[in-house]
């Protein structure tokens, strides 16, 4: 178990290193043109060159990367090209927003998937057909389109909830919660159907296993078999499904933040990409990769722990 955890941890670190390195080399590749992009077409070549030197963009890309790594080991992700603000502290104000939205969605998605997926696998019939319909619909329609349609109907049409904007929780807790309802709903609608359907698949696979028949033969009631035995076995695949869906959701979250003007990481990334504020963009990429890596790591390790064969050996 410990060896397994360490191996997964090593592979997670490797993935983080490779991806951030590749991204860094790609986006910092052409220093002078970055300086040009910052200053605009009108700037003279001299000012551009001067700015490039000032920002260290005249250095070879590998030495810039080395510098970035050294800063990283000191807890810094560099500074914004425009405001000079520390990237780490810029991320720090944005990360909570993204994590809260993602966290609430994951929680609700897990809950609904288990309930609906189990019901569909055990009962079949109309629940199953409705679920299949929503799974196809949800996986086909992009989340930001769902978000736009929600804003159009719920917010603009009926005036039930704020269309866009974010309220700081310490200022107005109710308003904060209301500002999160539509974003959460938009992401949830897109992902919960396929998550539930995958969980349904996992449960119905287990229901067909020999040991379930044997448990039935002992006179154990169907409810006890499902809740005491089948769901226990479905926990590991369920966790994998949830992990994959969580990672898959990240792209949707970026767009949703833009639709609802929520000050999260995705919003920051887009804004800074449009302004060519590359250190900040690099910080956002690192955050996304870390989320992916951590989610994968947790899924793998907890999943292994759930399996007695791995846990006890």
């Amino acid at each position, binding site marked *: 178990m410990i060896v397994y955890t360490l191996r997964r941890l090593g592979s997670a670190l490797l993935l983080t290193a490779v991806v951030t390195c590749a991204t860094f080399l790609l986006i910092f590749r052409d220093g002078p043109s970055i300086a040009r992009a910052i200053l605009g077409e009108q700037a003279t070549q001299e000012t551009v060159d001067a700015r490039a030197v000032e920002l260290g963009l005249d250095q070879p890309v590998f030495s810039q990367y080395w510098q970035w790594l050294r800063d990283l080991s000191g807890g810094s992700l560099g500074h914004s090209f425009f405001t000079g603000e520390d990237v780490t502290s810029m991320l720090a104000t944005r990360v909570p927003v993204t994590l809260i939205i993602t966290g609430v969605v994951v929680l609700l998605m897990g809950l609904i998937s288990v309930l609906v997926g189990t019901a569909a696998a055990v009962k079949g019939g109309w629940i199953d057909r409705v679920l299949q319909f929503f799974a196809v619909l949800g996986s086909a329609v992009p*989340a*930001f389109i769902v978000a736009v349609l929600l804003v159009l109907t719920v917010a603009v049409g009926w005036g039930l909830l704020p269309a866009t904007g974010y309220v700081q929780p310490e200022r107005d807790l109710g308003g904060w919660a209301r500002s999160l309802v539509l974003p959460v709903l938009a992401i949830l609608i897109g992902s919960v159907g396929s998550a539930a359907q995958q969980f349904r698949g996992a449960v119905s696979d287990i229901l067909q296993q020999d040991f379930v028949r044997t448990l*039935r033969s*002992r006179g154990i009631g169907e409810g006890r078999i499902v809740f005491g035995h089948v769901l226990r*076995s479905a926990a590991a695949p369920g966790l994998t499904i949830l992990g994959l869906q969580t990672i*898959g959701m990240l*792209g*949707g979250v970026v767009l949703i933040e833009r639709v609802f003007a929520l000050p999260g990481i995705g919003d920051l*990334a887009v804004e800074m990409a449009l302004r*060519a504020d590359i250190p900040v963009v690099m910080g956002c990429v690192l955050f996304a990769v870390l989320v992916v890596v951590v989610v994968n790591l947790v899924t793998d390790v907890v999943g292994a722990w759930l399996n007695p064969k791995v846990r006890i050996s």
Partner: protein
Amino acid sequence: MSADPVALIPDVERPAQAPAPKEHVLRRLARDPLALISMVYLAIIVVVGLGAPLLAPHSPNHVDLTLTNAAPFTSEFLLGGDASGRDILSRLLWATRGTLLACVVVLVVSTVVGVVGGLLAGYFQGRAETVASWVSDAIMALPGIVLLIALYTVIGPSIITAMAVFGLLIAPSNFRLVRAVVAGMRNELYVDAAKVSGLPDWRIIFRHVLLAVRAPIIIQSGFVLAAGIGIQAGLEFLGLGDPRTPSWGGILQQSFTTIYLNRGAVVAPALLVCFTTLAFVLLANALRDVLQSGSRHRPLTSRQLAAARASVVTPEAEPGPADDALLTVRSLRIGYPDGAGGVRQVVSGVGLSVRRGEIHGLVGESGSGKSQTAFAVLGLLPKDAIVLGGSVLFDGADLLADRDAARAARGARIAYVPQEPMSNLDPTITIGRQLTAGLRAVRRLSKREAREHLLRLLGRVGIADPETVFDLYPHQISGGMAQRVLITGAIAGDPDLIVADEPTTALDVTVQADVLELLRELRDERGLGMVLVTHDLGVVADICDTVSVMHDGEIVECQPVRALFTSPREPYTRELLSSALDPEEMP
């Protein structure tokens, strides 16, 4: 694609059955209304995209300031005007060309890179494959849109380049498919045969692999295109597209910023993206059903079911069960949907009867219906099984008709010993817990009483250290021990009848004899009746009192064991005996 499309693409990694001929596929697709609508819709999109210069009422940049933010259906701008006074309909029509171009780019890049990479990795294997697979897994794990946003700083507002990058990011789904097929094919005989006959290697690969992966890649393409359109519109919506040319996502974003001024303007671009991605996904799903439908069985409609039941001839009045019979099965008929609206019978009119203390063997080759008969007695037939007729009389009740009686009998009066010991134990909980759960389901016992009872029984079935085994997980014990645990589970509720389905087949020969001996002892101690399903005539000779021989869903002969071995009546029984038994082994 709320979700990142790379992670969401469903696994079509089953290199499926040979695809049906082409016109056939299209005709079958057209029969599915959703697929037909999707195809017609997508055809219209293509025509509209190509014909935009002819079809659009205005040029995309034609401005009429009086129609700024005009609501849909109120002016000559049919779908309304945008904030700059341009016709939204015309702009959408022109933007369709960009979508089509992006689709082509995504499709070409993802297919070429995925297929070529998969071919190379699968064929050469070794280190190249390891590296390629690691890269592919890493790409699959990443949130594609975040990388595309970061790369905007390098590639700028060129949506086509961005979509080419997206094609790279989504290529792993094809890569994995192709690699798996090639790796599987490498070892197959006909590749070797082709090698011997001197064909160059690349031709072997192309001929065979491309044929095999064609169907799954076509299906996959539907999902890839849906994801691509979603990503493209998303990037444009974020403002990362080319602002000079109209695009679906760009128009949607412009309309969205003025949503309070002109509500209706977002509807058309939003639905356009929505319907197009939906059409691709529906088409891909329908294609999957048509191209890979081998495994899917539609359940029967109630009318088909009634017809199947009516076609069964009900036997005339049968003699009542013998007085001393514990279990009487009469005229049992079981079938399964045959996939074409009919029922395939697997048990056709089986009857047998078991007395207390009798071990009744049910022999026959696999597929003869003996296990189905056993499951019917237990009331544990698979979900799609259809009982066409007959009765299972146990203690005065018909267990087939009376589900409550069947439930009450299970575990308490009728118990089951399965064939494969390992797969019949719940792998996630300890042996003690699963035995206790079963026992307490049928007997009112405290946990402690149940534990004591079970420990005694575990000792009785020959487990040396019951206390230790009680707390072990199934994977920690041997197969023979697991079978003893399962026998403990069966006898724990003190049943009158045990149905044992090939109880020794999965065990080592030495353990087999022990388990048979144990079953015999338990019968003697408790006066159990037993239905013993087996294909092994050695087991029959060893332990059974009476034998029913099954063939093709029917019992062809039923005799006391000695009589069956010495004077079989039916030719089939004789055949079975002569093929399976050494004369010396007969009792």
